[in-house]
């Protein structure tokens, strides 16, 4: 798993809260602030995993830039892991 790189770069608490709330099926569903903080961490790990795995894929193909095809190759396993 990717170690957290920089504590400063992360999703905003408010963004994650609104994001999750917008996807809830029922309006009465709420989310506790600690749960939001954990989801901020979870989403950050998800993005970092996506990025680092794509980077590794690009590295194995000897490419200097990470491109969409690298991400496409790691996507199925990424989704199975989350």
């Amino acid at each position: 798993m990717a170690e957290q790189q920089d504590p400063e770069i992360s999703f905003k608490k408010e963004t994650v809260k609104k994001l999750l709330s917008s996807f809830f099926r029922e309006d009465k569903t709420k989310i506790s602030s600690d749960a939001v903080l954990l989801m901020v961490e979870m989403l950050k790990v998800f993005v970092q995993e996506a990025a680092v795995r794509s980077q590794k894929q690009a590295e194995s193909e000897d490419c200097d830039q990470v491109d969409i095809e690298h991400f496409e190759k790691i996507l199925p396993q990424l989704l199975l892991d989350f």
Partner: protein
Amino acid sequence: MSVDEHETQQRLKAAVHYTVGQLCQKLGDDHRREFSRQVIAAIAETTFRQCDIFAKDLEAFARHAKRNTVSTEDVKLAARRSTALSIYIQNKSEELNQDLKKKSTGKKKSRETEEESRE
């Protein structure tokens, strides 16, 4: 979906895109391998849709526990598929509890120490 809701979604998507871009930039600099704009957009879109899945799961977990509020327990359950992720989330959750303990030394503390002594 109304026009307003649609706009809110677009704004949230843009916010996700921005943060994904920053995280990728950082990793790109650290490992000397840059991300193309297309990859960043794809990761952002995937994250957005994954969020949809997470939210629906969390809601279902909370409902199953006969609650209307999603708690940290539900998030822990959402992270069950990967052992490493699950441990990471558990640790983060404990960190949050520690912070809480420092702030308020009320009845919640005795319950938590009880849990710790059991472990």
